[in-house]
């Protein structure tokens, strides 16, 4: 699979606030933007991929909206990591020549749309989870708080170290004109902000925004004729060991240990080869756990690793260069934005936040409550 497919175009739509827009309209607008970026039209697309928390048979809905009659449709839903994971079936379908150009899209109006709490009540009724819900975990924050508390207990990780992660994300966001939260943020601000589920404060938690994104995937031989520099898929791995936090074997070790190892093996690369890192930071503890589990530092040493601005602009390791889910955009499922930012960095299109000479980018998706872990490694033509 290594190097056989590439991302030819990426697009965003409705990030931040998009009042008056439906989820499918935001997804379709992002799709149009990604197709324009790839120099293609909907007529060139014969594969459709989407995941939604709300729209029933979302693959049918997106194809219908865009007027596409796909030969390949895929809607695996494993939470926010889905849109990183979609690279796997999409690459397989392209490799098997089931289709020639696949559009992966996502849209959400969770910030300004109505009916969010009503949808939550319906989901609770349909999927009661009787071994967790009666204790009223305020999820997802409570599940991640339990992981953070355990990491702090076991390794001496501090709230200040977690706050470093939020501050680094904000500093990247300040370099990104498309980011939603760009006002200054200090470690003291994070520590003093409202507690949600101890030890996490509201500033340890991701944004709640609207927004959509899309990317277009084609075979490597095709992408050479298209206008933008392609981002090749060098490696990808997926793993999950639990759904509910109470079934997670060790709250300090995620399945990213496995997804990352497999992605690096396929790519023939290691953490030392990665120029820019995009991690699914729904909460500050995520960034810390994934840096450890993907091998950027040793288990238990993530707190020290992120200190002193190491993952902030100007630090040794650029992490979440768009500002992440903490400060750029987080409309319920963040996965597609990891891939989009990785591609923009590899193309040299990231403006003031551009990582110089970025050739290898890692995009790591998380779904559920530290449940689904999916790692993708993308590279420029020179890395093939």
């Amino acid at each position, binding site marked *: 699979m290594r190097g056989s497919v590439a991302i030819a175009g990426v697009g965003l739509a409705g990030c931040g606030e998009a009042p008056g827009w439906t989820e499918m309209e935001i997804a379709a607008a992002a799709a149009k933007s990604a197709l324009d970026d790839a120099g293609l039209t909907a007529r060139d697309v014969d594969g459709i991929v989407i995941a939604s928390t709300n729209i029933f048979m979302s693959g049918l809905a997106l194809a219908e909206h865009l007027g596409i009659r796909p030969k390949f449709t895929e809607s695996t839903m494993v939470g926010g990591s889905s849109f990183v994971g979609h690279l796997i079936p999409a690459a397989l379908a392209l490799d098997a020549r089931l289709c020639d150009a696949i559009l992966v899209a996502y849209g959400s109006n969770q910030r300004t749309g109505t009916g969010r709490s009503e949808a939550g009540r319906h989901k609770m009724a349909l999927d009661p989870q009787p071994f967790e819900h009666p204790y009223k975990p305020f999820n997802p924050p*409570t599940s991640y708080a*339990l992981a953070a508390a355990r990491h702090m207990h076991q390794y001496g990780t501090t709230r200040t170290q977690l706050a470093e992660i939020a501050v680094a994300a904000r500093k990247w966001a300040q370099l990104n004109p498309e980011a939603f939260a760009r006002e200054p943020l200090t470690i003291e601000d994070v520590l003093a902000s409202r507690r949600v589920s101890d*030890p996490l404060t509201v500033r340890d938690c991701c944004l709640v925004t609207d927004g959509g994104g899309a990317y277009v995937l084609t075979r490597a031989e095709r992408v050479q004729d298209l206008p933008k520099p392609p981002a090749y898929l060098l490696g990808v791995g997926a793993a999950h060991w639990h759904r509910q936090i109470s079934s997670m074997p060790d709250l300090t070790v995620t399945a990213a240990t496995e997804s990352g190892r497999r992605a690096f093996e396929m790519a023939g690369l290691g953490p030392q080869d990665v120029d820019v890192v995009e991690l699914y930071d729904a909460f500050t503890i995520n960034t810390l756990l994934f840096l450890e589990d993907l091998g950027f530092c040793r288990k238990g040493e993530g707190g020290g690793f992120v200190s002193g601005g190491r993952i902030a602009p100007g630090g040794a390791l650029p992490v979440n260069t768009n500002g992440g889910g903490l400060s750029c955009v987080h409309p319920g499922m963040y996965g597609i934005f990891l891939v989009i930012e990785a591609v923009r960095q590899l193309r040299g299109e990231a403006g003031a936040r551009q990582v110089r000479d970025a050739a290898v980018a890692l995009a790591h998706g998380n779904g559920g409550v530290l449940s689904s872990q999916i790692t993708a490694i993308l590279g420029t033509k020179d890395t093939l």
Partner: protein
Amino acid sequence: MSPPSGPEKHYLDALAAGRFEMQKCAACARHVFYPRVVCPHCGSDRLEWVAPSGRGTVYSTTVVRRKPADGGDYNVCLVDLAEGVRMMSRVVSIPPQEVRIGMAVKARIAEGLVEFTPA
């Protein structure tokens, strides 16, 4: 002949009747929680109901912050039971922020739920 209900209903019905029951696999001898049809350790469907000791240790804990008007802060935790399984629960009878990882706790049933107090 099929059992009268699935394992989830069996568990919840027992709790409602004041009994905390848990599955143990007759094939691999490991305890299983939450209740299932098939043992997640070995794949056997020979799961039998047993009474756990009720003794456990807090594996992790959080205080969920809630406005006083809505009932105030409360504890949510994960407890490792002596039988080698983990469950979500809450520690009551002490303030939520005083629940500590490593704390020995004892199960009781309240309002059809398993909750814990310091042992």
